[in-house]
């Protein structure tokens, strides 16, 4: 496998080039327009925001970027979100890799049941999990003394499980298309099955793993419903905390926009950095 980035640039027909230019420009505008509106709104005083819309701020102000830290404890929410999302992502990817390896490379009794059950969890509306799950956490707390409700640990466990079904399915499929020959070569070399996994399969599956990691992170980062019930003031995450800019009095549009942009900068920066892994396929010693 190799990546388009390594492919020698072929001469493309003008139809392709022009299609590319037009389509990507339109998609770019579609993606960027609301982001621009967020930016310009975040630089306007609230009065201007609630009046007729203007493309450029008539009065420019950086005040919202200062206020956002006070109206709502944004820094604390940000840290909570990072902790929860990073931990959930790391653990979810690890658990998914092991399970996907089993599904892809092994035939075992109960495999079909496992995969179908895991898939069916995607069909149940989240609101119905909510109370039963909270109840389970409370009971675990009563029995063992470990308080999972209101804690980051509870959220981490919840989120990591939420992203498992798709991650397992995606990774299993990805691993399916990694040639068995590579596994067998590693086994011949004397690695156990886990060795084959770490030495051969994982490096070959990096783009899939990166995609799944991004998905797991964003699932944890954006989840609102469970976070709203499972967290308290200290452990609240961003997804829920941002709603605090909409209060009894008003919706502080400019502050919501400013806060959203501020917390998204690291995420987008992460995307930028991870991009190369998405496009780099490593096939050290590909089977010929």
């Amino acid at each position, binding site marked *: 496998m190799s990546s388009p980035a390594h492919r020698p640039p072929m001469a493309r027909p003008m139809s392709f080039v022009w*299609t590319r230019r037009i389509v990507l420009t339109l998609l770019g505008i579609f993606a960027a327009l609301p982001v621009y509106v967020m930016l310009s709104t975040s630089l306007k005083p609230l009065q201007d925001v609630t009046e007729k819309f203007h493309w450029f701020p008539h009065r420019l102000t950086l005040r919202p970027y200062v206020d956002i830290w006070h109206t709502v404890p944004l820094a604390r929410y940000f840290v909570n979100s990072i902790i929860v999302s990073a931990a959930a992502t790391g653990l979810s990817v690890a658990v998914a890799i092991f399970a996907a390896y089993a599904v892809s490379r092994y035939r075992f009794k109960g495999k079909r049941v496992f995969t179908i059950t895991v898939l069916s969890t995607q069909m*149940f509306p989240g609101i119905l999990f909510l109370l039963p799950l909270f109840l389970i956490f409370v009971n675990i707390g009563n029995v063992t003394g470990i308080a999972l409700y209101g804690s980051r640990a509870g959220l981490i466990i*919840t989120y990591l499980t939420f992203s498992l079904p798709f991650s397992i399915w995606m990774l299993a499929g990805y691993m399916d298309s990694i040639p068995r020959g590579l596994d067998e070569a590693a086994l011949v070399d004397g690695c156990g099955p886990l060795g084959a996994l770490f030495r051969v399969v994982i490096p070959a599956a990096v783009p899939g793993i990166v995609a799944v990691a991004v998905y797991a992170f964003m699932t944890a980062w954006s989840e609102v419903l469970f976070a709203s019930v499972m967290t308290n003031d200290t452990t609240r995450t961003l997804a829920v905390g941002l709603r605090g800019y909409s209060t009894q009095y008003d919706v502080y549009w400019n502050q919501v926009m400013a806060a959203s942009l501020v917390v*998204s900068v690291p995420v987008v920066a992460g995307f930028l950095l991870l991009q190369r892994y998405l496009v780099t396929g490593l096939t050290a010693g590909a089977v010929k």
Partner: protein
Amino acid sequence: MAVPTGTTAPSRGEGQGPRPGSGRVREPRRTLKVGRGAVPYLLVLPALLLELLIHLVPMVVGIVMSFKELTQFYIRNWSQAPWKGLGNYRVAVDFHGAIGEALLRSFGITCAFTVLAVGLSWLFGTAAAILMQDAFRGRGFLRALFMTPYALPVYASVIIWAFMLQHDNGLVNHVLHDQLHLSSKPAFWLIGDNSFVSLVVVSVWRNWPFALLILMAGMQNIPDELYEASAIDGAGVWQQIRRITLPSLRPINQVLVLVLFLWTFNDFNVPAAGDLISIHIYQASFLTWNFGSGSAMSVLLLLFLLVVTSVYLALTSMKRRSHV
């Protein structure tokens, strides 16, 4: 041309990777290790335990709830709630009654919304992934730009569109009405009939980057040799897309479209008035303190999605086999 067909459907087939230069497509045969010791079970165990604790047991509890009359009177002590048998279900499927009719209507709207939103998200994602295959200046920046809607917190995405779609002060009406003079008076986008359009647009805006992400990763799996071989045969880029790229992405697309469908169907975060089923169920259960009824509706939703998924998987797997 040989087409690699790694399959992603659960517990499908067996085979080896494509042998270069092989002729017709064959269902790949894979020699799986048959249950050597506990290895596969150990590998699957963490996922299984987590799924049991977080997904499956709450689901079972939810299903049990649907057979009870669980209203505000019994919420403190679920085991005391009286059994209602199929009572909640009967009310939900009685399409002549008000509740059943409202549920059915909400259902229909959600189906239309989901098909449209997923279709467009997939289309945009595929188009962008294919068009960005080649390196060109600014590609990295463009990718990051495309991913930005996905990176934004859901609440922010929803609220920015709600802001833009306002009747009086929104950008959309400002452009359509004030600047381009396309309509005689400003339209309503958040209420009324147009709100359906708003829901679709916002869903596509938020979700198509995810399709792009998955497809970009999937395209890495397509061997260069295929493209090179076809170029030697004289195939142009459009033919390559039709004959190599799209078929190779089939397995990924099978997963992608299905999960997008399931997630969009259950989507909760909307900027406008819209009778989507997950909100409908939330209103019918949480806001009215009738959890038994809400559970029953959710179980019905689950059954519907199970049927749709099975049919979908059967159809798409059959299609692939017919290409062999």
